[in-house]
């Protein structure tokens, strides 16, 4: 691999792996969209580099483009984080409900 060349597949693999770790159970449901979003971002970053190298955009414009892509990536990660928290919340509440049901069933009437 030439020096300074970004291995896109490797980059995508590590981004997906990090996302999977955050989401675990929810990953199956959102992975098709998430993969597409991450691939788009990586492709866009490549395109910005090409436009700058070909002199089609200035350094200032390239920076503005990078800011937009960076912030877009941030919103994707924030959504992953949010969906992860929702999953945790559902898990905790399901566990609490299970405890409630067990206690009520054990004592034979609705205590909690």
């Amino acid at each position, binding site marked *: 691999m030439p020096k300074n060349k970004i291995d896109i597949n490797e980059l995508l693999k590590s981004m997906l792996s990090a996302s999977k770790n955050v989401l675990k159970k929810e990953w199956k449901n959102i992975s098709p969209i998430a993969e597409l979003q991450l691939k788009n971002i990586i492709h866009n970053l490549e395109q910005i580099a090409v436009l700058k190298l070909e002199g089609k955009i200035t350094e200032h414009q390239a920076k503005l483009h990078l800011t*937009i892509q960076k912030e877009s990536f941030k*919103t994707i990660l924030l959504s992953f984080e949010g969906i992860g928290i929702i999953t945790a919340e559902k898990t905790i509440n399901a566990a*609490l409900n299970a405890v409630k049901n067990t206690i009520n069933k054990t004592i034979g009437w609705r205590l909690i």
Partner: protein
Amino acid sequence: MIINIRSFSFFFAFIFLFSCSEIRLIQEYDAVSDNKINSLQEKTSRFFVKLNRTFGLPENKYDKYIDFYDDFKSDIHILEIRTRSIEKTNITQQQITSLLTQVNSLEALHKSGFKNKEEIILVESAFDNTFTAILQLQQALKNKRN
């Protein structure tokens, strides 16, 4: 006797904890915010259709789109105020701030003028990803209630 009272208190503290309402780690779904985000996405979509169609023409210049930027920023401000008033909306608030940063950068690019259509495609793609992500979270919040 002391031990019995302690055990009894512990039991009731335990019951009290479990009888509290459900644990909430993240905001509840807010239909007003969700509708506003959907409306912003529609406006942005129309903006890019027009920007692509008018590429290379005088109608593509920043001056012709000032209303869009003003409108977009006003909506963002309304959303910021709305989400700040609701508990545990930290993630949605950050996403809205990020959206504002993106539109500010887009405005700066537009002011300097688009000389390549690829530039518009790049920005449009980023905004599509952003809105997809924000709406994914809104949908997940909505599903949480069911």
